[in-house]
């Protein structure tokens, strides 16, 4: 039941299994009857032994594959999302957001493998027509928010440098960016303003979410400052399933579908999620058997609503191991936004196959998906009810900012009383204030949308 929907293009093993159930072949029967025996075989290649449960310390579905089949299945899901949504094309320069967790470790590893293959092809080809895409890595250092973890973070950064340097050739640059970099001013002042900003938020969930938005801001900044044109985030099925529920619980049903697609181009640098079809369990298993070093820098479990949701999802997952897939599949049926696609490529450097594939999988533009207004804090598209309740007639700037926010941010992030609200507003990074100033309607990405067919390049480097 896991991924048997028509919109799951992964060569998911569960499909094989279900077909096998419909018409039990002798081979399948053999493997299923001997599943408790000693000499059971991988359900896919039926040649090698499956990954032994004991050696990796995990039961469950993944272990019915042999190592080779498990890995190629997982890489296949990654590659299919990359190619079918034109996430990476030869002329691109991609930045991998690396937290040190299992998901981003796998994302980095897979992007590296893909780049390595491209390099080999490049060297082997006569005309060398296809350039190899560039890869960079970004780590956002949040030790100014969690001072207790700063030592741990420093150690981790050393190891990360080592990890990234080993992923060559081609060379990859690691950008270590303190989160306070979102402020244009010097770092000490930035730290203070960041602390003030977070301290002004009372709700634990709101604080956590604000930090998440700021992290994205920091990633966007490092990406655009260093000439990257894609940001790769390692969000996996499990993570997205939890987001579906948290967003629902926070009343963000309207904007939810914007966050869970393969592509999210509402940012200056489009964000892509190539691991959307992989579950956390699979990624953890791969990290363990591949010996990928992962870091757990923060020990504090998610707070408030986010914490409740994550324990709820764990409970559901125990009751039915494919629950996360079902949740993501349900949310996947919601109508996406116009920015949930990479503009179609007409660059002849891009292989025809890629362009054709993109045409096939890319979202069709629908009339109703026209210009949107966005919440200046979380950048989520505003629903009509949010727009109606926003008052643009407010005289003072901080109240105008509040009026432009979505109802969810207004409730859980923005301070209620006017003095701390003023304080909060003055501590905001410039970009967030600017989002509101330029009016949410003539936001650059929606402007871009309108003139898109006349633009020759994807990036705005020339401007």
């Amino acid at each position, binding site marked *: 039941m896991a991924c048997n929907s028509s919109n799951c293009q992964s060569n998911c093993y569960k499909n094989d299994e279900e077909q096998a159930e419909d018409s039990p072949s002798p081979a399948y029967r053999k493997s299923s009857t001997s599943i408790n025996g000693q000499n059971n075989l991988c359900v896919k290649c039926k040649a090698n032994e499956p990954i032994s449960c004991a050696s990796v310390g995990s039961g469950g579905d993944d272990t019915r594959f042999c190592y080779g089949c498990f890995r190629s299945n997982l890489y296949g899901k990654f590659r299919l999302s990359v190619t079918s949504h034109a996430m990476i094309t030869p002329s691109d320069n991609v930045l991998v957001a690396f937290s040190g967790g299992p998901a981003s470790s796998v994302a980095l590893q897979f992007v590296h493998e893909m780049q390595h293959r491209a390099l080999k092809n490049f060297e082997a080809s006569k005309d060398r027509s296809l350039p190899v895409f560039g890869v960079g890595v970004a780590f956002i250092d949040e030790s100014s928010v969690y001072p207790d973890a700063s030592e741990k973070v420093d150690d981790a950064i050393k190891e990360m440098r080592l990890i990234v340097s080993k992923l060559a050739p081609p060379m990859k640059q690691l950008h270590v960016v303190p989160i306070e970099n979102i402020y244009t001013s010097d770092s000490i002042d930035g730290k203070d303003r960041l602390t003030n900003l977070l301290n002004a938020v009372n709700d634990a969930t709101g604080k956590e979410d604000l930090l998440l938005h700021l992290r994205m801001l920091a990633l966007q900044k490092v990406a655009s400052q260093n000439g990257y044109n894609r940001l790769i985030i390692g969000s996996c099925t499990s993570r997205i399933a939890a987001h579906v529920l948290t967003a629902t619980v926070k*009343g963000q049903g309207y904007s939810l*579908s914007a966050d869970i697609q393969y592509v999210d181009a509402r940012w200056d640098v489009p964000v892509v999620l190539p691991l959307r079809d992989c579950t956390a369990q699979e990624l953890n298993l791969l990290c363990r058997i591949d010996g990928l070093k992962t870091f757990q820098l923060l020990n504090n479990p998610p707070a408030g609503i986010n914490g409740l949701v994550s324990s*709820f999802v764990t409970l559901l997952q125990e009751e039915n191991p494919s629950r996360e897939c079902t949740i993501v599949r349900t949310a996947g049926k919601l*109508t996406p936004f116009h920015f949930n696609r990479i503009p179609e490529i007409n660059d002849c450097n891009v292989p025809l196959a890629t362009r054709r594939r993109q045409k096939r999988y890319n979202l069709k533009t629908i009339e109703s998906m026209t210009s949107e207004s966005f919440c200046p804090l979380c950048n989520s598209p505003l629903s009509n009810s949010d727009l109606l309740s926003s008052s643009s007639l407010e005289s003072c700037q901080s109240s105008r900012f509040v009026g432009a926010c979505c*109802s969810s941010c207004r409730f859980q992030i923005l301070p209620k009383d006017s003095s701390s609200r003023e304080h909060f507003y003055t501590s905001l990074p410039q970009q967030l204030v600017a989002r509101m100033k330029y009016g949410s309607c003539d936001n650059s990405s929606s402007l871009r949308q309108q003139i898109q067919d006349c633009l020759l390049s994807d990036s705005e480097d020339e401007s």
Partner: protein
Amino acid sequence: MEEAADAKARKTGVRLCCLCDQRRAALKRPKTLEQICRECFYKVFEEEIHQVIVENQLFKPGDRVAIGASGGKDSTVLAYVLSELNHRHNYGLDLFLLSVDEGITGYRDDSLETVKRNEIQYGLPLKIVSYKDLYGWTMDEIVKMIGLKNNCTFCGVFRRQALDRGAALLKVDKVATGHNADDIAETVLLNILRGDIARLSRCTSITTGEDGPIPRCKPFKYTYEKEIVMYAYFKRLDYFSTECIYSPNAYRGFAREFIKDLESIRPRAILDIIKSGEDFRISTNTKMPEQGTCERCGYISSQKWCKACVLLEGLNRGLPKLGIGRSRGLDNDGRKDVKHSTGTKNIESKQCGTLDF
């Protein structure tokens, strides 16, 4: 330290209602956590429901309205509040109580006694339709035959139809049910967990079945369960609060507990879930089953036979498994694709009593 505690105690001792600022606060309102007095609670509770009725135009003057009455807290409070508001705001409604007798000894017979008392207390005419009369089977007999597995499926399917049939007998224009905000929030979550996009798009509508013969509405769509209990408690309303003997754990679903946990750290979460449910971008061309009528009984059905008739046929032929599980109906090859849904049981709470979603 002691002084501070003392001052606090004195302060809480004379805490006044934050709405009227005159009477002493008697309760913390579950929806907003405001400390208010009893009188103000009644007032805001009733006023909110009145606003919901007016804004959504749930009723028209002269409508005959049946209140689905089980004798439980939700329907008892609904009957009480609707008759109050009908008088107070001159809705001009003819109200009726409509109960379904499933034939469960030790549960429904007792709760029906409550409804009968309500009939006298509120002066609303009562109509009882029974499974025995409609289908020839009581739930007791069904359980004797099929055991305690899937019995809620029978009960749910039969009840839905029984309510419609009862409403037709009463010649009412509308049926009002006691579904509260917690129920709707739970349904939104369950539909996400199950992957049911079609139901997800419908489950938050306050009125359903407008294309059918008798539409149903939920005046308590935004009313918290806790407040309903509180209202019934303070007003000393006469209601029945025993769990169904055939589904004693029906209220211990994961989703329900999750919602209770959410409510305790953020009361607004229930309303937010409903808002999300209303705001989901679901394209209108999502396939909806085509509605026809059952060839056997004439009730609305998307298949050749309605679900109740399929189940009934199974019972009468001694094949109770017929129609149980997620039936996809007959496909082109005429092959019946029946998939048993197991394991999803414990995530939901109200299998039983579910009418609409």
